[in-house]
């Protein structure tokens, strides 16, 4: 009898899948859900709990006019609760409130861009702004009311993708880090994990900052720099008409419970660790955020801050996503949303599904989001851009 050593070694390893997705954030989970909807046998592995990195810690904004996926993002969000079968807390519309003239000029410029894509945007004078946003104060200069866009609850959305995926027969393995890719004959045939090798025909890498290190051995260079960003949340206040009201250098939303959850301001560049971050600390920045939120909503200055938190996002050198299926090895699809990936996730997952199944995105032209653009990127791009950690800066 001939022993199948490979089979024996992997006896305890989880069963492979047609498509294995590394990364159980919104990008990977949405992609897997889309694949499962197309009848593909899909398995998501995550080093921890789903959504534990950026996907469960963000501002929940779903309004990305700059993206080629914008229209698909706007088309899908109003349907997501029904499609997934679990609540995402999505609510439509945004108001952006200016408290300085500079902000007002900027927001009106944004209004123009959004209008040019066929969506209505109203401009509110200070009195109208105060009427629309009762927490606004005498400092209101104006506001734009965007009749599209919206916001949702990050962790709830992550969980909804995961459960919807499972309901379609897809699998999620938590606490299962990908330690490396398994290459044979120039193709990726699986991922190495502490439980053994998990085989696949196609691999999707949506591992946030860790994607760069995972992909390198497969000859794919995805330049990324990770950074920490912070948010605060207050006690609940009476609901605003449009929960997605922000401005004054802040992004965020009022949750359906009534809490004000806002972020913005400076970030801290980090070195990426393969096993994931050792901490996600908040800093005294919570006070600077508090100040700006009280300026944005003077009538909420009394609201108590309950928590602050931080999340880690990766950025590409130009801050734009990479959604690509490089020709070599050909069976790997890569997706990073470069720090702006929650709201776009219904659409980014769709695009990844299209690349895996059809080789091209069916609903939008996304050619400019390919890896090709970094072909000539110098090795020291981070230093050149000043995207360095404080330690590296001190050392220099």
């Amino acid at each position, binding site marked *: 009898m001939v022993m199948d050593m490979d089979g024996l070694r992997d006896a305890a390893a989880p069963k492979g899948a047609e498509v294995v997705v590394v990364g159980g954030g919104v990008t990977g989970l949405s992609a897997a859900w889309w694949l499962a909807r197309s009848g593909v046998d899909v398995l998501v592995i995550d080093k921890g*709990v789903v959504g534990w990195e950026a996907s469960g810690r963000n501002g929940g904004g779903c*309004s*990305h006019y*700059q993206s080629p996926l*914008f229209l698909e993002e706007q088309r899908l969000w109003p349907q997501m609760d029904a499609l997934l079968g679990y609540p995402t*807390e999505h609510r439509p519309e*945004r108001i952006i409130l200016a408290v300085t003239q500079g902000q007002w000029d900027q927001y009106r410029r*944004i209004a123009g*861009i959004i209008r040019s*894509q066929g969506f209505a945007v109203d401009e509110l004078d200070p009195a109208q702004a105060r009427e629309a946003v009762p927490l606004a104060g005498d400092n209101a200069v104006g506001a734009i009311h965007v009749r599209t866009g919206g916001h949702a609850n990050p962790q709830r959305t992550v969980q909804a993708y*995961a*459960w919807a995926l499972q309901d379609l027969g897809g699998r999620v393995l*938590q606490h299962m880090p990908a330690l490396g890719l398994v290459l044979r004959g120039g193709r990726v045939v699986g991922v190495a994990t502490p439980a053994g090798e998990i085989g696949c025909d196609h691999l999707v890498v949506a591992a946030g900052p860790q994607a760069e290190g995972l992909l390198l051995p497969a000859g794919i260079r995805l330049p990324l720099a990770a950074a*920490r*960003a912070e948010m605060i949340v207050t*006690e*609940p206040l009476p609901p605003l008409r449009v929960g997605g009201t*922000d401005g004054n*250098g*802040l*992004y965020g939303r009022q949750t359906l419970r009534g809490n004000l959850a806002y972020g*913005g*301001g*400076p970030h*801290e*560049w*980090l070195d990426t660790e393969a096993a994931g*971050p*050792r*901490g996600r*600390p908040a*800093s*005294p920045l*919570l*006070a*600077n955020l*508090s100040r*700006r*939120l*009280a*300026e944005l909503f003077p009538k909420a*200055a*009394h*609201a*108590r801050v*309950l*928590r*602050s938190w*931080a999340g880690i996002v990766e950025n590409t050198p*130009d*801050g*734009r996503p990479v959604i690509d299926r490089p020709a070599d090895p050909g069976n790997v699809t890569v997706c990073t949303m*470069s720090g*702006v990936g929650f709201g776009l996730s219904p659409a980014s997952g769709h695009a990844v599904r299209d690349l895996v199944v059809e080789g091209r995105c069916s609903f939008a032209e996304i050619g*400019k989001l390919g890896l090709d653009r970094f072909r000539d990127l110098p090795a020291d791009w981070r230093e*050149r851009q*000043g995207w360095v950690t*404080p330690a590296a*800066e001190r050392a*220099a």
Partner: protein
Amino acid sequence: MATVDPKSLHGKFPASREHVEVLVVGAGPAGTAAAIAAARLGAKVKLVDENPVSGGLAGLDVPLFFGGRAGAALGNGQRMLERVFAADPKLEEAFEAGVDLALGTTAWGLFAHGPGLQTLPGPVVGLADEGDAWLCGFDRLILATGARDLVLFFEGADQPGVMGAQALHALLGRYEAFDGREVVILGTGDLAVAAATLALDRGVAVAAMVEVRDAPEADVAPLLARGVPVLTGTVIRAAERGPFGVAAALLVGPDGAERRVPCDTVCLAVDRVPAVELLEAAGGALVADGARGGFAPRLVGPASSIAGVFVAGDAAGVAPGPAGDASAARAWGVAAARAALGYDAPAPAPAAGRDRNPYRLDWMRRLLAVGTPDVLACQCEDVTRGDVLGVRPPRYLGAPASPRALDTLLGDGPVNQDQIKRLTRACMGACQARRCREQVALLLALGAQIPVEAVPLAGYRAPVRPLPLGLLGRLDERPEMRDGWDVWFGIPTQWVPYDDIGTEREAEHLRGNMHL
């Protein structure tokens, strides 16, 4: 190298407004002893304590479970300040030893260099009083933040008159502002005995002591002698609602019969947990240690895992023995001060008590046995026990009934209280989970049939006191913070509309940089 990203945190934080050699947080027996010892060793010491707390915070059950029984006198800040000062002669001693004593001052955050945070000029504690907030730098920090009550709920626990023993001690001992006359005490351990004794000494009647186990946990003979009924094998099913809060405790005895004990206050004195929120929120290591009262700092002597940060007293682990005996806390304080200043310090004996979890679980099991799934687990967010075990989204979402529950979630991976928190909102409220963190963990342990220690801590985050936006916003700000502020990363190319990328229109977008 090019210039450092002007939109990053690099160089944005100002030097702290004040800087001290030794900062002590908490002016209980441990902190006061630490401050006096450090001052006598020649250090410049600042000792802060949040007492007297504002009526607003007390109303939220912060920092202690006051349960609506803080008297109106608490609103008189000046009078309370005098009382708090007078209640402990050691404070005057500290003052005379040259300690800069700041009462009514809350430490809301500890920030120190660690993984992911390297941009601070140095380690700092965020402080606030009624009117201002600022950062205080330190060479050495001693956390003597004491303990908090273990809160367990039953029907009616969300009304005025249900409170904790630590809060009772603060209101009777420190403030002389307790709004109750007749109290039922839950528990018969050292803590419950101290609470009952204190109540009787201050002229508050003790209607009963209630114990789920078959025998009292501590020596209750002196209390029996003072006429206090001690009811063993008994649990509280509900606190009866009256016009001013609790009207009676409805108790279920060993025979299953219910009896009504009139009272205006039910005082939880089952156990306490170390107050470790400042340390944990700063990334300090904790260990699940049932003998020390739950998640307690990982210590080497009095030193925490964060350089320069020391822990003393109940915060280091709730000591076994009489709750009224502060000598161990004082000894810890002195040892922490000596260690902080580099002197030899006999390492304080670790709190070598017995594991407290079996007792807590006995209580939780009995409370579950006599209560329904509709009993609250989280009062702020209106989350019931059934909601937690069913991992139900909040009712206001009106979501359809879901087949998902704790048992299906367990199929996906080990139980994680923070995950349950984000899905059910249990522990997300204004009390910052002071009333629910431990009981949700006990509930999850029982629901998942795992040891309590296996339920990961629901993390703490700054600010560890719920302070107003306007107050926190008073922190000093450098011009670099204002000038470098951007809503997101400030990468201009990120926001160029896709169609314009690579066209001549692209340049127009590279100036403005705000997005939605």
